[in-house]
């Protein structure tokens, strides 16, 4: 009993120590953000208040937050999975786009009953994203080429490829580069449509959030309870050690990276089917990169990344409102989130936290994958 109590207090202390680090980082970032706003001649308190009110202050704001968070959950989970297997998948951006265009294509070009069509479209997104992750993965595993350069290159190739597709072969109207609309059988219903206008008016929040949460739960179970999840974590911690432990490196590593790309692609398809219902050229750049940031913010674990993605989505929703009302560019949020990550990653900066007696033992404020071969 006493033993159990001690482990519980220990756990609480660790969690407390870690959140102190995160809180201090957020505080520091908010301070720097305030300085920027003061220089711009804005009242920071007012701006932050508007931001929070815009994100959480009304049903509409909450739903917009949810809608903005949905794609970020996918990209954050995709980045987290890759980070955990020891890969810096900064190609989530391109994988998201390829998944979106695959989803859009299967969504409009195929005619099937909804029960088959919708899963097929989602699968197309998943496999599109996985396919886009394939080449960098193989180059990393077979040739030892850093995935950072190759995934960035494939991002650029993806955007140009999609611009070509939406401008020529898949183009629907002569005026704008976009694909034909997705069939109703492949659309993910928005809450407004489901409730016939009584719930969620003026928002595009859609049932895709449930798919996102399903992915979160599945990934959580995989990491906690299954062999493949264990193997992914081991590979991420140490290549030689996992090989010694009898893990099939190629299969585990390549599998992990492909699933990561697939989740990003699935996110792209969900965003198309739920919000846009057709592919507009370059409809919304940056979901992948923000997903990378959310994964870093969430300490590269499934639950943390999900919370970070929800937080990020909320802040984006607030910032969109802010752009309308106060004329503050919404990139301010990306700046503040970037600052939070700088401060969170800077373990040494918060070293004094560790010197306080009751947080000793929670060594790392922020988990890093220090011993990776890159």
């Amino acid at each position: 009993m006493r033993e159990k109590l001690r482990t519980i207090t220990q756990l609480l202390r660790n969690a407390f120590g870690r959140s102190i680090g995160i809180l201090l980082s957020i505080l520091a970032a908010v301070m720097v953000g305030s300085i920027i706003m003061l220089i711009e001649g804005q009242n920071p308190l007012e701006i932050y208040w508007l931001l929070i009110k815009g994100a959480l202050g009304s049903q509409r704001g909450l739903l917009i937050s949810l809608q903005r968070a949905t794609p970020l959950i996918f990209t954050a989970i995709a980045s987290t999975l890759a980070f955990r297997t020891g890969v810096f998948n900064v190609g989530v951006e391109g994988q998201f786009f390829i998944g979106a265009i695959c989803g859009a294509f299967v969504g409009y070009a195929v005619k099937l009953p909804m029960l088959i069509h919708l899963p097929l479209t989602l699968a197309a997104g998943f496999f599109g994203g996985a396919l886009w992750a394939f080449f960098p993965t193989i180059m990393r595993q077979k040739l030892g080429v850093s995935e950072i350069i190759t995934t960035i290159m494939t991002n650029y190739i993806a955007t140009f490829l999609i611009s070509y597709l939406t401008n020529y072969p898949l183009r629907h109207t002569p005026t704008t580069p976009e694909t034909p609309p997705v069939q109703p059988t492949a659309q993910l219903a928005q809450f407004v449509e489901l409730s016939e206008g009584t719930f969620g008016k003026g928002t595009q929040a859609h049932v895709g959030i449930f798919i996102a949460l399903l992915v979160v739960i599945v990934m959580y179970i995989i990491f906690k309870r299954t062999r493949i999840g264990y193997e992914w974590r081991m590979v991420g911690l140490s290549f030689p050690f996992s090989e010694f432990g009898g893990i099939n490196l190629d299969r585990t590593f390549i599998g992990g990276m492909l699933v990561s790309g697939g989740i990003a692609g699935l996110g792209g398809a969900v965003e198309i089917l739920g919000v846009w219902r057709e592919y507009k050229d370059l409809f919304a750049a940056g979901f992948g990169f923000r997903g990378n940031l959310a994964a870093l913010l969430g300490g590269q674990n499934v639950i943390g990344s999900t919370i970070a993605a929800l937080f990020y989505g909320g802040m984006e929703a607030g910032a969109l409102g802010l752009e309308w009302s106060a004329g503050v560019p919404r990139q301010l949020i990306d700046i503040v989130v970037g600052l939070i990550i700088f401060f969170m990653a800077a373990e040494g900066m918060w070293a004094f936290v560790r010197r306080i007696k009751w947080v000793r033992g929670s060594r790392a404020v922020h988990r890093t994958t220090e011993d990776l071969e890159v």
Partner: protein
Amino acid sequence: MDFSWILDILQRYVFNIANLQGMLRLATPVVLAGLCALITSRAGILNIAGEGMILFGAWFGVAGSYFFRSAWMGLLAAMLSGLVVGGLFALFSLKFRAHIIIMGIAINIFANSATIFLTREVFGVAGAFSDPNIAGLPPIEIPILKDIPVLGPLLSGYTFIVYLAWILVALTYVFLYRTPWGLHLRAVGENPQAAETLGINVQRVRFGAVMASGVFASLAGVYLSLGHLQMFTEQMAAGRGFIGMAVNTFGGGEPVGVFLSSLLFGIVETIGWRLQGERIMPVYFISMLPYLATLAALTIFTLRKQQAKKAALERAAREA
């Protein structure tokens, strides 16, 4: 068999003065990005923040030039931004022990949103900012040389940064192999523990390398924003920071190698521009060329390196 068509094509797309000039111009930001990657990789640091540093350099170049009506002030502002960003990157990743790749990813994304934010707030425009008040860097005509046929147009009349890039390649070589600091830097990169025991301050050397890389990257940025058209465009670095890393890899971490492989990129981009003018294929495929070329070159380079390693192992096995 008649092979004259090959010569025709070569002459049309590669070996004529206009194309070679284009190659030297378009290679310049890649050379500088390559030096940025080189100086840090030789100090044993994986610096992926070059992309972000280029963006900041491009933005501050335009801002300095616009507010002081002088391209040189733009250059100065950009270099200062390179020093500051490099210094912060070094401070966080070396002193505060932030994970260097995480830091790099964060800086790149941060630079992207920060420059968009700044463009909107400071200049009040979105997307791109150009203004007649932004002074561009004037072309430099080299006396005597400029009157020599072929060589004159080929080597004279570029903006200052093109020549600066060439000089920096030479200076980096001299620095690495002919000065004690260069020796220290290489020692730190090859074996930091050993360097430490020899009394070299590893931390300080790496700090310096990262700051220098910031300056190189910011010069690449200024070239993009003030070299030809005087404007800042969102995301104008367009992956050059990463192409610089790739160029450093093929160049074997040698200044001259970096220069030569950058020329290769220059020629790929020039051919792209030529093809674009002739409307042979959709422009999107042409825009892909530098990125495809990077992937192809990385693949070929590592495959060959692997083969060489295998051959060396076999030879060793046979001798033993």
